[in-house]
């Protein structure tokens, strides 16, 4: 086997190594925390108030694990390429790094981010807002690796395999991605924000699929296999599916009434708003917005439940499929509890809905984000 099982303590030590280096390089700023949703397997989201920078620091980046990982041993690690290719075989990390490097700064959002906001409630990790971040991923293009292997025209789907090994009879987390998408945008990343990819985020190699939900971003990659058909199994045929036609909240869709989750939906969140403000005095409201489209066209906020909207200023920093930071000087016109909300419109004209489409697994929640401000005269 190209990997060894490690226990949780070693996993944590490995995860800590790059962080120790990073900590020496910078001065402390504030007392921060991550919100642990599950102790094992580790799942943690970032407090929304900390997601204020264009590039999310590695140590603040949300962590999603299906189960306690069996992380690859970097010395023995190989990436196996087989399936519909002319030249199947294994490739080492150093061989991989000799290919031209590619970089993408883009959003990674867990498909289930916001599951805890759906009503009626659904089983699963009750993510609220912070299973999302924007990072700079460095690696090699999937296209270059597959061209090197001689991918055949018959291949339409890239089957991806991590070293995850679930307990008991739990189905393996095996996925596939449409080949057209990964040939266009996919990266096999070995670095995150200029540092070696942390173990918690999939070291030594993770698939990056800009604009698509996190279930495609396979961690601890050990095998790529182009195939004519999509992957089978629980995590393709039952989970990570979204209704083709919206239904009433609580309805149970059959698998054939749904299609795999792919692109992210247009979404904005408010990260900075005062708890208290004074009428007729301006205060700053900030946030981020992203979509499965390459860019955000505008973000608006409303203080009258969507009757009127005020356009915010978009931060000029942007990369395809990255988030846009936005800000707005908002002047409350009246005293009392004022409910602010934000909505984004992406570069394809998709408008963030007031209510996300209910689905039985709680994916892609993108309702308007409401924040209350107490305004005094």
């Amino acid at each position, binding site marked *: 086997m190209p990997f060894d099982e490690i226990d949780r303590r070693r996993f*944590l030590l490995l*995860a*800590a190594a790059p962080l120790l280096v990073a900590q020496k390089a910078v001065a402390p700023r504030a007392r921060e*925390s991550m919100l642990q*949703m*599950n102790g094992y397997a580790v799942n943690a989201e970032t407090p929304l108030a900390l997601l204020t920078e264009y590039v999310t620091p590695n*140590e603040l980046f949300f962590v999603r694990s299906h189960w306690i990982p069996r992380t690859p041993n970097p010395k023995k690690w190989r990436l196996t390429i087989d399936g519909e290719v002319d030249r199947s075989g294994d490739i080492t990390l150093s061989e991989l790094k000799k290919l031209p490097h590619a970089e993408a700064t883009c959003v990674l959002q867990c498909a289930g981010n916001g599951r805890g906001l759906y009503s009626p409630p659904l089983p699963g990790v009750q993510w609220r807002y912070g299973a999302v971040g924007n990072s700079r991923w460095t690696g090699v293009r999937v296209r270059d690796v597959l061209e090197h292997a001689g991918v055949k025209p018959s291949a339409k789907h890239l089957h991806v395999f991590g070293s995850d090994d679930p307990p008991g009879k739990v189905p393996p987390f095996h996925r596939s991605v449409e080949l057209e998408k990964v040939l266009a945008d996919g990266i096999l990343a070995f670095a995150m924000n200029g540092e070696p990819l942390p173990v918690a985020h999939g070291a030594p190699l993770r698939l990056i699929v800009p604009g698509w939900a996190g279930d495609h971003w396979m961690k601890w990659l050990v095998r790529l296999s182009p195939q004519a058909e999509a992957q089978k199994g629980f995590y393709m045929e039952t989970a990570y599916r979204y209704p083709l036609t919206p239904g009433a909240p609580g309805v149970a869709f059959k698998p054939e009434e749904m299609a795999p989750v792919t692109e992210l939906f247009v979404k904005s969140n408010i990260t900075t708003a005062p708890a208290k403000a004074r009428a007729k005095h301006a205060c700053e409201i900030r946030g981020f917005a992203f979509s499965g489209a390459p860019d955000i066209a505008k973000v608006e906020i409303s203080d009258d439940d969507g009757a009127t909207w005020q356009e915010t200023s978009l931060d000029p920093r942007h990369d395809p499929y990255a988030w846009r930071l936005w800000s707005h000087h908002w002047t409350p016109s009246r005293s009392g509890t004022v409910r602010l909300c934000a909505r984004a419109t992406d570069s394809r004209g998709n408008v963030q809905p007031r209510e996300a489409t209910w689905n039985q697994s709680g994916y892609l929640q993108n309702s308007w984000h409401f924040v209350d401000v107490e305004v005094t005269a």
Partner: protein
Amino acid sequence: MKRAAIIVLALAAAFASAATKRSVAFDPNLPVLGTKFHSLPAGTGKQQVEASCFPCHSADMLVQQRLTEKQWTAEVDKMIRWGAVMKESDKPAAVAYLVKNFGPANKFTPVRTRPAGY
């Protein structure tokens, strides 16, 4: 001279860039991520739930749920299909415990943690 000025400016820009790099300081009193978990409240069925669920999940996974009896029954059945060990005779008590404590009105607060190394 002009070249030296350009070099100085470039170095200044580089240092400025390093100095503005985001600094993160976590509360050192917080537990490290993955080392402290919620505990389950006392009650009939707790023992069965712990024995069957804890091999793969910390209590956190349970205490954040807000499920009806129908949903909890479906979850327990799914986990048994996936390898959780639970006697059929223990299932009613386990489901009743889960519904009583983690039903639709349940409130959950995540554990505040810091990453390892902070």
